[in-house]
Structure formats: structure tokens, C-alpha cells
């Protein structure tokens, strides 16, 4: 169950319309390392997670990723708010505009639509948490790539906040992975899959 809170986690107050910037940051909505992918990854993985506390962490981080998705969408929305067809053409946003006008649709910066194949829910705690650690690092790199080319301070402030959150999530997933290991065979973490080989876990 989720309840909506009618505010953004970090404020977005963009004063200058810029479809070009929108076409880049939309990748953090529907791109391979974007916030939609992040939230669906964590919220999908939690059901089979053998450690209840780690399931709780996946719920809380997955929920925060939904709020991050909303921040990115708010930025794209404001960057294209008063866009004309000519603005879209001049900014190279015209191909997106043809199919979606100025609505939000999850896609990567290069135009590839969002795809569930961009994340994994493997059913093995070590594999999934290692994927989560990598996902946070990949998202960090994407934010750094965006910050290298975007100069508008109104856009940079939320991107900087979102980049910092990737570091915190990475830290928390690292702690969760260490805790999972304490429940496993210390001589061989791969002796059994703690999400599946339940009989072996009891011994």
C-alpha cells in the first residue's frame, strides 16, 4: 500500500524552458539506469528476499526511487512547459514531440523506450544485492555525466541531490549484503541459494 504526499522530495523550480535539457535528463526517467528502473528493481526483488530487514530496506529505497522519478518528471515537465513546435525542432526534441507532444513517456536519452530488461530480479540475495550496488553506481555516473553538460543552476540543484542519494543507497545496500552473508555458510557463501534452498538454510 502506498499513500501520496503532495510535494516533491526535493523542490524543482525551473525558470527557463529548455527542451534540449529535457531530452537528456529524461534518461533518468526511462533510461537503463533511471529511477523507474530503480524503483521497479527494488520493489520486485523484495518479495523473495530471505532477510526481512533487507526486504524492508528494499521497500524504503524502492519508495524513495518513486519520489526520485517524480522529481525527474517534474523537471522534464517544467523544461518543456511553454515549448512551441519550433522550439522542439530547434532543440532536437522534435522526434519525441511527434509521438508524445509535451507529455511524459519513459525513454532513454537516445530514444530507446523503457524496458523491464533494464533491471533484474534474480531470486538470489547475493546476486540481487550485487545488482543493486551496481545500479546505484551506474545512476551516479549518469548524474555526473548530466552535471558535466548542464549549466542551469535550477536544473543542477535537483540533479546534485539525486546524485548524492545514489551514494547513500549504495552504502545501505552494502550493509544489507554484509548482513545477508552472516546468515550464510561463512566458508562458502554460494553453498546454497538462501531465497530458494530453504531446507539447506535450516541446517
Amino acid at each position, binding site marked *: 500500500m502506498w499513500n501520496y504526499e503532495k510535494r516533491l522530495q526535493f523542490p524543482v523550480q525551473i525558470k527557463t524552458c529548455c527542451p534540449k535539457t529535457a531530452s537528456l535528463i529524461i534518461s533518468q526517467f526511462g533510461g537503463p539506469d533511471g529511477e523507474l528502473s530503480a524503483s521497479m528493481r527494488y520493489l520486485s526483488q523484495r518479495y523473495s528476499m530471505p532477510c526481512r530487514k533487507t526486504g524492508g530496506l528494499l521497500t524504503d529505497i524502492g519508495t524513495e526511487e518513486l519520489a526520485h522519478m517524480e522529481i525527474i518528471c517534474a523537471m522534464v515537465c517544467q523544461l518543456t512547459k511553454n515549448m512551441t513546435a519550433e522550439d522542439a525542432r530547434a532543440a532536437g526534441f522534435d522526434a519525441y514531440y511527434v509521438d508524445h507532444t509535451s507529455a511524459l513517456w519513459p525513454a532513454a536519452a537516445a530514444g530507446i523506450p523503457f524496458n523491464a530488461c533494464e533491471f533484474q530480479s534474480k531470486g538470489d540475495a547475493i546476486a540481487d544485492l550485487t545488482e543493486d550496488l551496481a545500479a546505484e553506481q551506474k545512476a551516479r555516473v549518469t548524474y555526473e555525466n548530466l552535471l558535466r553538460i548542464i549549466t542551469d543552476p535550477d536544473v543542477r540543484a535537483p540533479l546534485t541531490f539525486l546524485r548524492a542519494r545514489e551514494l547513500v543507497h549504495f552504502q*545501505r545496500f552494502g550493509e544489507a549484503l554484509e548482513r545477508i552473508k552472516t546468515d550464510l555458510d561463512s566458508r562458502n557463501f554460494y553453498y546454497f541459494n538462501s531465497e530458494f534452498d530453504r531446507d539447506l538454510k535450516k541446517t
Partner: protein
Amino acid sequence: MKDRTSLLKEIDEISFTLNDLTLYLDTHPDCPEAVSYFNAMAPRRAALLKEYAEAFGPLTVDCIQQNGGLTDHFTWTDGPAPWEGGIL
């Protein structure tokens, strides 16, 4: 009375404190400093949400009940959407 922007900023800040603290507590559930910090911050957020609802409308559906319920009008969809921002 505080203006809408500065009250919302206070809510954003205290809520972020609690979000970040929640993730920390998820992996450190027995940390005494974090537990007492949570107990100190959570009531402050609740009070600010109530103050905001009284002045500018509810940020959650639960805020409606906490401020005496509805009169003749459903207030939840009043006011700007969170994503509208600076270009209105």
C-alpha cells in the same frame, strides 16, 4: 504566519531527515542515537504537516481528518500540483 514556500521548505527538510534516518535505521535498528533522533524528529514533521494543512491545504489525505475533516468541499485536489514549480 509563515508563507507557503518557507513552510514547505521546512517540511521538505524535516521529511528528508526522516527519510534518510529511516534507511539508516533499516540497517542499524539498534543504534541508540538514531532511535532517539527519530523520536525527536518525527513529532516535528507531524506538527509541520498539521500547520501546513491548516494554512494551505492537506499534503496527505490523512491531514484532512487531523484538521477537523471536510466541511462542504473536498480539499485534496485544490492548490498547485507538486510538479508545477516555477513555470506556472
